[in-house]
């Protein structure tokens, strides 16, 4: 294990991974990891987009992952189901990247695929229209937490089309991976 961990360390260093987390993404976890990104954004304002995308992706995992873990909250220790997933933030020569993955149910797959395809095929103007329509619709559904606004917002903040993959796993479930990239410098 010790040697494997060294390799993992080297690999993460080489790939310039800022942070990687796999497990139950509670609000506490995402706030702490998010703060790390937010602090970096003081030096480079492009990183604020990385932070914003990170928050949307991790809150999606927290609320919608089909795999959950009971995490005790507060001092009374009452457990509360929290979504499990994986999230990685890294940088390359030209961009920053945020990737998140989690298990989704067969019911979620169809909707997610449809939404991703629509987002993928939309230009900036269409994404804005889609966002406007969803924020108004979502708004009347008082109980809903995000109503898919998060994905559209991520696509709007990213500088490149989103990469997504929906890979079938056991029992009709799938593993959903989403990657968003932010350019370090905007093209003139």
């Amino acid at each position: 294990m010790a040697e494997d961990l060294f390799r993992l360390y080297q690999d993460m260093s080489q790939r310039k991974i800022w942070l990687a987390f796999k497990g139950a993404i509670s609000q506490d976890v995402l706030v702490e990891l998010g703060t790390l990104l937010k602090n970096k954004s003081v030096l480079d304002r492009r990183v604020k987009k990385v932070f914003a995308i990170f928050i949307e992706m991790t809150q999606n995992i927290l609320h919608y992952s089909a795999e959950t873990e009971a995490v005790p909250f507060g001092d009374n220790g009452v457990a509360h189901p929290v979504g499990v997933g994986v999230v990685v933030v890294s940088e390359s020569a030209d961009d920053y990247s945020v990737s998140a993955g989690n298990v989704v149910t067969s019911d979620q797959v169809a909707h997610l695929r449809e939404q991703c395809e629509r987002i993928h095929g939309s230009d900036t103007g269409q994404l804005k229209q889609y966002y406007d329509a969803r924020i108004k619709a979502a708004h009347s559904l008082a109980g809903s937490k995000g109503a898919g606004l998060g994905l559209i917002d991520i696509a709007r903040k990213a500088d490149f089309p989103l990469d997504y993959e929906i890979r079938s796993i056991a029992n009709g479930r799938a593993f959903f991976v989403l990657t968003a990239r932010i350019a370090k410098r905007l093209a003139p």
Partner: protein
Amino acid sequence: MDNLFLEATKVTPGVHFDATSGILEITGDSYPENSLQFYQPVFKWLDDFIQRSTRPIAFHFKLSYFNTSSSKCILNILEKLEEANRSGRQVSLHWHYREDDEDIRESGEEFAEDLSLTFQFVKH
């Protein structure tokens, strides 16, 4: 009527609603786990203030970040202000943003497009 003062946390904004002066301010970051739960008392106070007072409202949005579920709640607040304004209430709306923060400025511009309220943009 009582004021509504809420201390900012890492994930919820500071709320400084002063019923006497009519100056209402929201500052900081907004990405609570459950936005609706946080904003419910804010909506309630604003509804009461609109109904029970005739004092002009000066609303200052000074958020440095908000997530998408908070943005639905912000839209809700803006719509309440718009409605009050339509019914004759004097409302001024000030949207503050950092000079290098295009996301906050743009989101203000987008809200402004859909509302009849005049947004005054304040650059810092």
